[in-house]
């Protein structure tokens, strides 16, 4: 069983997923961060592969991507680094990034490399559902990879149903229609949106992301979904100083 499916089977709630950018803050930190996050209590990881033109990201993640690229990160190097991953890390790992680097690497080659290094799924925000279904779904399935789709407050019920039918991991609920790094504001409107999704009784579990930066916002996310995804706040936290200490201090806020 895919590790993503396994975690949602074993742990129904309070699943804590952490996003970080590969090759940041140091080019060689990718696997060490994964290991430290697992040790500190993360349930799932999203490793971002950097792109020069990340339109869905806010300034913090964009800056981390730029530094990573400047330091020499690319998909070849990332897969090289990830060969070490499964020696220490057992929790589910996803890769997150934009479609152009995947297309240039080759979709089949990319999926194969993911499977070989023990990556369980992918999040490619600018890969349209219709393209995925027509061209790439079979390749993803062949290598046992989950493809995770995003849902926003503006996504129609019909489209959410379609996304659910194409998904085999979880569905990524955006707390608002926004780029990364905004604060999660649980207003009546977002509450209604989260409840609406909960009422749909989707086949796939859900995770809420974008805007989760504190225990309080994480708990709010867990009230409406199986867990929460933290990105910007974590990337900010490891910007400077001792990596391991920063990770431990950051994670204690959520796990204690």
């Amino acid at each position, binding site marked *: 069983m895919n590790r993503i499916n396994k975690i949602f089977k074993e742990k129904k709630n309070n699943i804590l997923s952490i996003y970080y950018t590969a090759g940041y803050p140091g080019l060689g930190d990718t696997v060490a961060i994964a290991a430290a996050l697992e040790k500190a209590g993360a349930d799932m990881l999203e490793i971002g592969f950097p792109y020069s033109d990340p339109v869905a990201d806010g*300034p913090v993640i964009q800056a981390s991507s730029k530094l990573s690229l400047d330091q020499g990160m690319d998909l070849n190097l990332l897969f090289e680094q990830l060969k070490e991953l499964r020696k220490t890390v057992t929790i589910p790992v996803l890769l997150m990034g934009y479609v152009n680097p995947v297309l*240039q690497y080759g979709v089949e080659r990319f999926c194969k490399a993911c499977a070989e290094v023990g990556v369980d799924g992918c999040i490619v*925000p600018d890969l*349209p559902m219709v393209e995925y279904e027509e061209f790439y779904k079979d390749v993803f399935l062949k290598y046992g990879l989950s493809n995770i789709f995003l849902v926003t407050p503006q996504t129609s019920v019909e489209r959410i149903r379609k996304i659910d039918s194409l998904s085999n991991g979880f569905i990524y609920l955006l707390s608002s229609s926004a780029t990364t790094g905004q604060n999660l504001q649980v207003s009546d409107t977002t509450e209604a949106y989260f409840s609406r999704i909960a009422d749909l009784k989707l086949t796939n579990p859900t995770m809420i992301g974008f805007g989760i930066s504190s225990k309080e916002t994480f708990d709010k996310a867990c009230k409406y979904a199986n867990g929460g995804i933290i990105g910007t706040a974590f990337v900010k936290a490891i910007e400077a100083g001792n990596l391991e200490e920063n990770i431990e201090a950051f994670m204690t806020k959520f796990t204690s």
Partner: protein
Amino acid sequence: MNYFVNEKGYYGDFGGAYIPEMLYPNVEELRQNYLKIIEDAAFQKEFHALLKDYVGRPSPLYLAKRLSKKYNANIFLKREDLNHTGAHKINNTIGQILLAEKLGKKRIIAETGAGQHGVATATVCALRGLECVVYMGEIDIQRQAPNVARMKMLGAKVISAVSGSKTLKDATNEAMRDWINNPVDTHYIIGSVVGPHPYPDMVAIFQSIISEETKKQLTEQTGNDQPDYVLACVGGGSNAMGMFYHFINDENVKLIAIEAAGKGVSTGFSAATTFLGKEGVLHGSRSILMQTADGQVVEPHSVSAGLDYPGIGPQHAHLFKTTRAAYVSVTDNEALDAGLLCTQMEGIIPAIESAHALAHLEKMKFKGGENVVVCLSGRGDKDMDTYMKHFGF
């Protein structure tokens, strides 16, 4: 061969809508409504009335006699430089502002490189009383100060894009981010035939007024609506697509798109996309773009800020791949020389973008009597600094 968009939003292998889910509702709203709105008789009436009385259309098709003699062909210049705001960009912004109103949008955003599209957008927002925010790369803001002042005077807020290379590509990213963060009340007026479907088709339709008029004017002046050659410069490619549009299915009309070679295609300072690029996805569509082997977008270079873009619109990629149009390039210096030549032989100072198209005439061999249309996409006022520095005036 079909050179136009299919029902799925593709031109052959190119096009589509590669956008994050956050943009899906906006783009889908446009996709479902744009043709219905544009084809509506009341919309057409208002659009054409504004083009006539506000923009100053039809723009003349001018037979440039001295250039014609020099090149041994009939060189016709389609005078988009005479449009209000000084370039073809206004054809598209007039169309899109009317469309935004029909969609009930209250706020307009745009990206701009040289500032021509930003000025055209700020102009139509002032005309219709809509809030306007223009994203412009920090470096472009510095090198295009008069256009920044124009936009501000027109009431637009100009936001400096400080990410990446701080030029047009990054201004486009910032505008897309703004749209993601303001999905309900905002319309994004993209300035070229790029972006997710339906933008390339929509912008081409608005710009197609150029070739529609040219056909009528050619018939009046030559008795034939089909010239031998049609030339236009290509950055993203909106003036070229407007200039080609009604000639695309006239297979005996040779279409030539001129890209900016910058300092030379092999120098590392170039914007010759079809020569240096390969297939990929940028700003929401699959096209041809300049990129590294790893799929990171490469920063282009051109003396002309309007051609300084690492990709081309998906319809251009299709015309290139099917060889329906020829894609060639000229260097910064060749373009500047052609701009000076046009100025001194015809009394018309062209935008450096348009001077790229003119420069290709030097490389063509005519047997005499051929009819050649060159899209003079904009005027050179904005480029005086560059001309002055280069020629030492």
